[in-house]
């Protein structure tokens, strides 16, 4: 899952980014300026955008409005010091999905972010089940055939994304764009390494063809 934070107080943004990486295993980009933020949000397929309203360059609400009229569907959590109900209403009416006022609790922010991402992929239960596979998105634990599987952060991130889009063919580009922030160097063969590691760890005996490779198109996590 990939998140963009548009927040002019860079220290605050960095703290949020760190916590989201550590406790939600998200890929996080940070931008401290409005115009650049809008550009990033338009050109990358973020799953969630955390948006401050009082920004240099361009107001947060303008960014939100422009994003929505450009047809961008990423979930937007507004994080601001403006706390009157009219501000909150305007935030939602402009296209925000959630609203949190500063100062806020980090734990709450992370929980809201997870819920928003879950919702964006049509999931309501914090435990995502695909066939014999269960992913606890809160504790970040994976079970297959009722036995726990230990995964690295990137392996978990890959599997979570595939599980969210279970039954659909996910292209390599899609995976790269949703799992890496823009500071990473993207080599497409890195994906193949993770996928084969996942196959090995989940299904060492190769009894199930859990993650299918669709030639020339991408990967498919089967629902049964």
């Amino acid at each position, binding site marked *: 899952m990939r998140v963009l934070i548009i927040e*002019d*107080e860079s*220290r*605050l943004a960095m*703290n*949020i980014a*760190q*916590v989201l990486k*550590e*406790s939600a295993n998200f890929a996080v980009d940070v931008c*401290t*300026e409005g115009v650049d933020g809008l550009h990033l949000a338009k050109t990358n397929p973020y799953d969630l955008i955390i948006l401050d309203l*009082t*920004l*240099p*360059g361009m107001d947060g609400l303008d960014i939100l409005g422009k994003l929505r009229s450009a047809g961008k569907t990423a979930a937007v959590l507004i994080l601001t*010091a*403006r*706390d009157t109900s009219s501000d909150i209403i305007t935030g939602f009416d402009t296209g925000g999905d959630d609203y949190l*006022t*500063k*100062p*806020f*609790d*980090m*734990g709450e922010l992370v929980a809201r972010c997870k819920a928003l991402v879950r919702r964006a992929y049509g999931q309501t239960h914090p435990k995502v089940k695909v066939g014999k596979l269960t992913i606890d998105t809160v504790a970040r634990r994976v079970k297959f055939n009722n036995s726990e599987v230990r995964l690295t952060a990137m392996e978990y991130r890959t599997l979570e994304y595939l599980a969210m889009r279970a039954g659909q063919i996910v292209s390599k580009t899609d995976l790269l764009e949703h799992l890496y922030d823009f500071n990473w160097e993207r080599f497409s063969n890195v994906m193949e390494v993770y996928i084969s590691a996942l196959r090995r760890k989940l299904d060492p005996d190769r009894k199930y063809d859990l993650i299918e490779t669709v030639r020339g198109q991408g990967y498919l996590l089967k629902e049964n």
Partner: protein
Amino acid sequence: MQPFSLKWRLGICVAILVVAIIAVLSVTAYVQFRETLKTGVDSALLSQAEAVTVSMAADDSLLEARKEIQAFFGPINDTKSPVYRVWFEDEQDDYVASGLQENWPLDWDIQSTEAPAIGDHKFFEASRGEIPYRLLWTRDPDPRASSSTKQSLNIIIAAYDGHVDSQIGDFLQVLLIMGVVVIMLSIGATLLLLKWGMKPVAGITTKMNDITGKNLNQLSSYVTDAPSELRPFVRAWDEMIERLALAMQQQRRFTADASHELRTPLAIVKSTLQTARSRERSSETYESAMDQSLEDLERLEHLIEQLLALAHLDDIESQSDWRTVNLENLVADVCEQSLPFAEQQRGTLKWQVCPAKINGSDEQLRRLLANLIDNAIKYGPKASEVSVSMRSLNGLVNILVHDKGGKIPVEEQKLIFGRFYQIRKARKRASSSTGSGLGLALAQEIAQKHRGSITVQSNPKNGTDFVITLPHI
């Protein structure tokens, strides 16, 4: 006592006016009416006397004349019938004709009345018992052609006079009833008129009730049909609303800015500490989180201090600590205290003072000067000189704070004194700000409170000058 309402005031005024008009009309009418009635009686009496004289002149025989006169007046039926007496001067006892059998005029009070001159006549009032009479007494030369004597012919005719007074009485009674009715009607009409006239006022009042702090609308936007008398009122009200709306807008913006500025450092501190605590970390990470938090808390502390100073300045009681302040010592003191900060920035601070005393708050004046010097050190070029100089002239004292900068554009020179201006500007420019955004606003408000001002001049050639002008004692 509560003042009378407008309608009763006007009602009473109208009633008094109506009473006065009716009184004047009544008196005039009474006099005129009475005069007319009296004149009518008098002319009747005169024509009767004329008739008697004519019959006397025509008939030589007194007996014939007497018969004719008696026929003329007719029999005396009641007290209201005319009473008369005709006689010659020297025949006092023997009258020619009389309307009464009894001894006329003994029971009439005529004796005291002086007889008119010959050829003349006079009117007078007399009464018989309770009955009022109007009397005519003519005294003419003997009209008989045959008569050679020069004795005069006296005629007294008395006409019943009571009907004049009774008619006037009736008239006055009608007048009185009419007057009362007219007064009642006029008061009622006044109340109704006033109610009708005040209708727009009631309408405007209803509209005014809709105006609240959240809904500061112009009255004229919904009162389009105000009568011309009320238009100045609506205009004045709108101007007041405009001023209020501006003040409220400024207040709202200030509150929003202040809450943003207070919440942001708080959010940073909280997030820093929570991030550090979220899992096991190295002691260096904890240390850096604490250092950063302390730094943020200092920024917050400074902001809160400035906000409280502003709030205190708005306080009505804020002049309680005013006394005579020795400005010379104060300026030297503040400069000395700011010197370490200047040296920390690898710059210098020089000052020159002159004697001056002003009336004001020592604490506030210190804050004013310290804010300006701090700004000069902070925003002037690094490692350069800031100078403070002082001059007393024409009852005013000028304190000039100079730095070698000069980057404040002319169009911004007035705006920098607005509360949180710097921060709004920083937001636009994406540069991080270190100040509270309140320093200059506070400085200007302190100067204004002391009946003074602050001006700024800034250009790259001469640097930046902030000049405080204050009235001295």
